[in-house]
């Protein structure tokens, strides 16, 4: 279990993180989501005992990162945003070095290196110098180095960034496979990269957690129902009338005329619903004589919420979060 209580980190006068409190259960895969500069890397570096916190307590497996950093380091594997690999070493040499550095001894070293190679699927490249490997493979070697000593906790800083689509899928599977045996913390600035991988997501902004939960919980708590896009044939002057009509439908909280349109006489609306009232909506517009051309559910809805949450301290996003939050059950721990 990882416990973070009132963590602050200042760089000079600038607050990078804090106040930040969170609890991560054993075997969980947790995503840390935030824009660049939100404090993700700083938080992870403190977890990995690379950096000391300014104040607050961080306990990894019950051990304090300030009091007994060596004990924590033995139990944690860390992949920084650039893999800490020596380009002139071969994969095998490097992993052997990393394992010994973390206190693996004797015959265990070879076994652990083999296991790490197998899990990260870089066995075929084990005798090549790391400098000759592609970015994707280097990233894998970086992960292999983080798990070679079988740590209870694995901390990965943006393991997916810069990978091609095939590699992203493979990397997701790899991270997924680490769960259970390891407690994993992954950071990313792109939601779609991690929402399928993680059991829970912390959205972080200005060094603070502004929302947390599973993807489903986050969207339920934060999205207030669903968003749909509606394309109607409204004729020359019907756009405003249709807009009024949509707004009058039960459950509609917001109607917005989209700028883009299929052609003359066609209007698109972005509609926010407090609950699923798509049936009523279609019946109403068709009944009023508008041609229903398209009704789609907003695909990137969580992404947009994330963006809203991540934007620099604009009040609406915060208010929204506070109002909706009681509905989200797992947020109890950060309220404490």
């Amino acid at each position, binding site marked *: 279990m990882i416990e973070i209580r009132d963590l602050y980190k200042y760089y000079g006068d600038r607050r990078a993180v804090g106040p930040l409190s969170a609890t991560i259960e054993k075997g969980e895969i947790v995503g840390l989501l935030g824009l660049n500069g939100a404090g993700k890397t700083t938080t992870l570096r403190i977890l990995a005992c690379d950096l*000391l916190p300014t104040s607050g307590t961080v306990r990894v497996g019950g051990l304090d990162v300030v009091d007994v950093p*060596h004990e924590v380091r033995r139990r944690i594997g*860390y992949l920084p945003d650039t893999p*800490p690999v020596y380009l002139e*070493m071969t994969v095998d040499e490097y992993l052997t070095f990393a394992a010994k*550095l973390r206190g693996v001894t004797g015959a265990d070293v070879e076994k652990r290196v083999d296991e790490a190679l197998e899990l990260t699927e870089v066995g075929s490249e084990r005798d090549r110098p790391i400098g000759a490997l592609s970015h994707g493979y280097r990233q894998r070697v970086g992960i292999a180095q983080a798990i070679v000593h079988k740590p209870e906790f694995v901390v990965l800083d943006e393991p997916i960034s810069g990978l091609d689509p095939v590699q992203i899928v493979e990397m997701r599977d790899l991270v997924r496979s680490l769960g259970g045996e390891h407690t994993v913390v992954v950071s990313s600035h792109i939601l779609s990269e991690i929402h399928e991988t993680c059991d829970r997501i912390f959205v972080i902004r200005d060094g603070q957690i502004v929302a947390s939960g599973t993807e489903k919980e986050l969207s339920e708590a934060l999205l207030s129902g669903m968003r749909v896009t509606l394309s109607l044939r409204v004729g020359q002057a019907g756009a405003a009338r249709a807009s009024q009509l949509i707004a009058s439908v039960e459950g509609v909280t917001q109607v917005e005329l989209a700028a883009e349109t299929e052609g003359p006489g066609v209007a698109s609306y972005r509609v926010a619903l407090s609950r699923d009232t798509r049936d009523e909506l279609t019946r109403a517009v068709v009944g009023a004589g508008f041609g229903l051309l398209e009704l789609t559910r907003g695909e990137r809805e969580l992404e947009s919420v994330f963006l809203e949450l991540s934007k620099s301290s604009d009040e609406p996003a915060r208010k929204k979060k506070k109002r909706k939050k009681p509905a989200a059950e797992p947020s109890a721990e950060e309220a404490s």
Partner: protein
Amino acid sequence: MSQALLIARRELAAYRRSPLGAIVIAGALLIDGIYFYWKGLTDKLVSAQVLSEFFYGASGTTMIAGIVLAMRLLAEERQTGTLTLLNTSPIKDSEIVLGKFVSAFGVLALMTLLTLYMPLLIFVNGKVSVGHIVVGYSGLLLLGAASLAIGLFASAVAKSQVVAALIGTLILAPLVLLWAVAKAVDPPLNRVLTSLAIHHENFRPFMNGILELDGVVYYAAVTYFFLLAATKTLEARRWR
């Protein structure tokens, strides 16, 4: 301790694979050879003087080699991000510094020992004592260790290798030049400055085959001081 050796071994392998170690050794041997030929073999000197002259020349290349060999030790790791690997492993900062130092000293010692053919030439063709050769080499190694420690400290402070070399030079050069400053000031201050100078009075006895405890203690102290400073620098970096 075993962790320090682990780092030293990895570092030695890195020296072997990068051209830096070979270039430094080749360059030092070339300069030593030219100096030996120019100073030692052209003038009319007795064997012992030739040998002293050789150690004098080699001391210069040893100091430069010390700075150059040490500049990459920590600065390069910081540049490539691999320092994080060491920082997040259960290993003390002092072990990192010690491991780095030991490896660079290994290369420097190899470089120094490869010059042995020159004293041997004098030994075979002239008349010098084995003691003179042994004491001279001890001096070179001690001076080299001190220069490496200074370079290693510079490497711990600097963000890049070039800056590390620059800082190392900026520390070492004044230490060398202290004896000139000492000449210009009155006693008793001149005595203090002279004994603090890294080369002049501390190295001269070694060069002439006289083993003085002062020099040994001086070089050991300088080495220890800068290695400690490098360790403390690494520790302090965790706060920011």
